[in-house]
């Protein structure tokens, strides 16, 4: 029986209290806070972060497919999941697909993965779900929506949770939508969307899947399901027949409504605390509903080292500055910087380098054993060893999963940055090798020579429709 082999999650470092948003607009702020992706993050980078968490201790070369779910993909043409797969170091022979445009995309991707595994066309499939939907400034959606992601590795064998059954209802019930040229999600009157749709259709799917398995709400340790905000989330739990203690923490007051990622993030939260034998119900909502029944196995004890939801919730910094959020989302026209315009990357050059640069490979010299991360203005592939000068005698050497130490840094107030000052660093890696990186998610005052950093996949800049992804470093916070 197909099931979950591993899980991971990602929640951005910054949290914006809803009171700060309310204050900016002279409105009452809703309760809690929302997770805010940095300006250099998007569903692609958050999928990579969740995927790295999920693949801890697992060889990425064993994964057969990657399905990425999001409603806010950075590219409308160009497969986003293939960028994620490249950064995660999956094989070129793997199948990728973007599951898009639907708040239910995460569970649809999961069910497709289960089908592929059951059909024998893939042994293991990674499903990532990440979202950063935009609500119009000053509106209710702006306060409700948060950013984040989750990743599940699905397969057979030593699963941590079996997927016992599923039930799907498709229904073109549209209370949220976004047309091709819309920046913000549009929402119909809440009473229609929530009373007629959200309270009824997911509950129907949940009831049907339980009926299918001869199970009742009392048989479940946890119910994990999507919710627009906390009060409505609680209501649906009750309608479905669950006691408050059975309802898995919705994340709506701490992370916000992360759209297509939310059901999977809530599920990861449940798996972190699950015991062998627990049954978990997973319900999504959006153009219908999916309901899945999962049963946790003994294997769950072996993957307690994920950052998942719990540790990511602890790693945070409060943004007390709403203007910074507006800047990060490009919602205010800014004075042009008195700096040269960014030159767009050359597509042939990026393509030449991408097999090396996207998964952050350097080389190790076969002659002298020196690891080296090469990045000249022209290339990321060294030809001559920096130490022994041997020519083309290298084996690939991965840096993305290595920790490093800051050898030197500067906070550059002149450089172009949406989170000034731009912190530039030189990082020496554990095991050898050095590279120059911008530092993300840092408080300038915490930067010290000798501090420990890890690598994070980010967007270096965006220009002329090109999201130029590469790696930055960030402080190790656990």
């Amino acid at each position, binding site marked *: 029986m197909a099931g979950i082999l591993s899980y991971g999650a990602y929640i951005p470092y910054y949290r914006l209290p809803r009171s700060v948003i309310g204050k900016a607009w002279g409105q009452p702020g809703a309760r809690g806070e929302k997770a805010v992706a940095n300006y250099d993050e998007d569903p692609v980078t958050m999928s990579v972060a969740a995927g790295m968490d999920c693949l801890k201790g697992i060889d990425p070369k064993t994964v057969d497919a990657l399905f990425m779910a999001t409603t806010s993909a950075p590219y409308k043409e160009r497969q986003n999941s293939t960028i994620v797969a490249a950064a995660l170091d999956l094989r070129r022979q793997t199948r990728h697909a973007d599951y898009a445009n639907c708040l239910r995309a995460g569970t649809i991707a999961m069910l497709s993965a289960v089908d592929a595994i059951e059909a024998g066309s893939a042994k293991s499939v990674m499903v990532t779900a990440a979202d950063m939907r935009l609500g119009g400034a000053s509106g209710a959606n702006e306060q409700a929506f948060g950013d984040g992601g989750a990743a599940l590795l699905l397969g057979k064998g030593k699963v941590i949770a079996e997927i016992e059954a599923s039930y799907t209802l498709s229904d073109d019930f549209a209370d949220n939508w976004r047309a091709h040229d819309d920046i913000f999600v549009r929402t119909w009157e809440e009473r229609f969307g929530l009373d007629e749709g959200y309270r009824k259709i997911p509950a129907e799917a949940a009831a049907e899947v339980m009926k299918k398995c001869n199970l009742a709400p009392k048989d479940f340790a946890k119910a994990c399901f999507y919710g627009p905000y906390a009060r409505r989330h609680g209501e649906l739990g009750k309608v479905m027949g669950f006691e408050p203690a059975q309802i898995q923490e919705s994340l709506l007051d701490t992370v916000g409504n992360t759209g297509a990622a939310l059901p999977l993030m809530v599920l990861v939260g449940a798996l972190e605390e699950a015991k062998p034998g627990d049954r978990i119900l997973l319900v999504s909502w959006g153009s219908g509903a999916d309901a899945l029944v999962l049963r946790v196995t003994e294997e769950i004890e072996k993957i307690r080292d994920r950052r998942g939801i719990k540790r990511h919730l602890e790693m945070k910094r409060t943004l007390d500055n709403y203007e910074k959020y507006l800047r990060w989302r490009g919602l205010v026209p800014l004075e042009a910087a008195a700096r040269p315009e960014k030159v767009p990357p050359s597509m042939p*050059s990026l393509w030449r380098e991408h097999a090396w640069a996207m998964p952050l490979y350097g080389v190790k010299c076969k002659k002298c054993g020196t690891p080296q991360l090469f990045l000249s203005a*022209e290339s990321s592939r060294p030809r001559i060893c920096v130490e022994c000068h041997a020519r083309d005698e290298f084996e690939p050497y991965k840096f993305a999963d290595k920790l490093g130490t800051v050898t030197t*840094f500067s*906070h*550059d107030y*002149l450089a172009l940055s949406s989170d000034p000052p731009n912190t530039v660093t030189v990082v020496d890696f554990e095991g050898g090798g050095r590279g120059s990186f911008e530092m993300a998610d840092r408080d300038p005052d915490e930067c010290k020579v000798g501090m420990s950093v890890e690598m994070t996949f980010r967007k270096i800049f965006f220009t002329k429709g090109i999201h130029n992804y590469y790696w930055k470093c960030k402080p190790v916070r656990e």
Partner: protein
Amino acid sequence: MQGIKDRVAIVGMGCTKFGERWDASADDLLVEAAYEAFEDAGIGPDDIQAAWLGTTSSGNTGMLLSEPLRLGYIPITRVENACATASEAFRNASYAVAAGIYDIVLAIGVEKLKDSGISGLGGGQASPSHQLSAESTAPGSFALLATTYFARYGLSFEEGKHMIGRVSWKSHRNGALNPKAHFRKEVPMETILNAPMIAWPLGLFDCCGVSDGSAAAIITTPEIAKRMRKDPVHVKALQLCVPPRDGNVTTKYDYSHFPASVRAAQAAYKEAGVTNPREEISMAEVHDCFSITEAVTMEDLGFSPRGKVKDDIESGFFDLDGGLPVQVDGGLKCFGHPIGASGIRMIYEMYKQFQGKAGARQLKAPKLGLTHNLGGLPSGCVLFAGIFGLPEA
């Protein structure tokens, strides 16, 4: 290897007023510098047999020089080696004379930076590439040196800031005495220390200015020079060191010195026969693009022991009245850095000092002077070191 010592001489030099020359194009700057040099040498443009033109971004080909000067059909080489471009033009011109190919040549550098509309250096149009490198600026890249230097030698932020601030304070005092400098004002230490951060830990006064300018030299053989004027200046050493830009690849680099500086300086000392630079060098113009660059360069050149430059800076050893005056003309700090011109501007101060024409900045009987001109970033930069002196030195 014969080396360059006493094989070529400078018989004329010119240097424009450096600054925000809203009034002048690159053409105007070239004419201004070249004609001052012609007049100083007592020759005309028709006497020039070949020329080397240094510029990084103000134009292409030798015609950038021949067109405004209407030089007729002589060989002109356009030279680029980042911020060491002018020194490189001078070096190549000198070699052509030393090789006996030409008798009289012109080395000239120019940069027109202030037409760009941006602050700092633009870096020019990058060639199409992956553009994956971290966003960087010149101050951000050189600030890396200060962070590491402070940490490595146990300087508190305040001690380090004061040390590099004192470097700029000294240069501003010198620049105030120089009519050709861009900034001609003494700046109090308090102002320097409290200036806005540009790239932490470097503040505004730790950064050199951005200016327009041009500087030129007429180079000939020592024999011809002797006939042309009574006070020619001899070239004693010209060294260029180009590293493999490996500072951000190998963990062996410490980010608190310039390996290429050390090598270029050692080679120049050998070429000129200098054994104790701290004693034998009378004055130096070094590449103070940032205050920290000058500080570590004092160690790289062997003027101060490694890790100890603070003592020499704070005691005034490099001041105009100190044991080894550095940035006598005000340096990049006060001249700004029109990239393709700066290296020859440094030589211009040497030349005037040896001739006793440095006005209020005049040193007493200097014997040997050193110029140091680097191009690139701490992770890798081309390095020029030159030594100049009177024929008998």
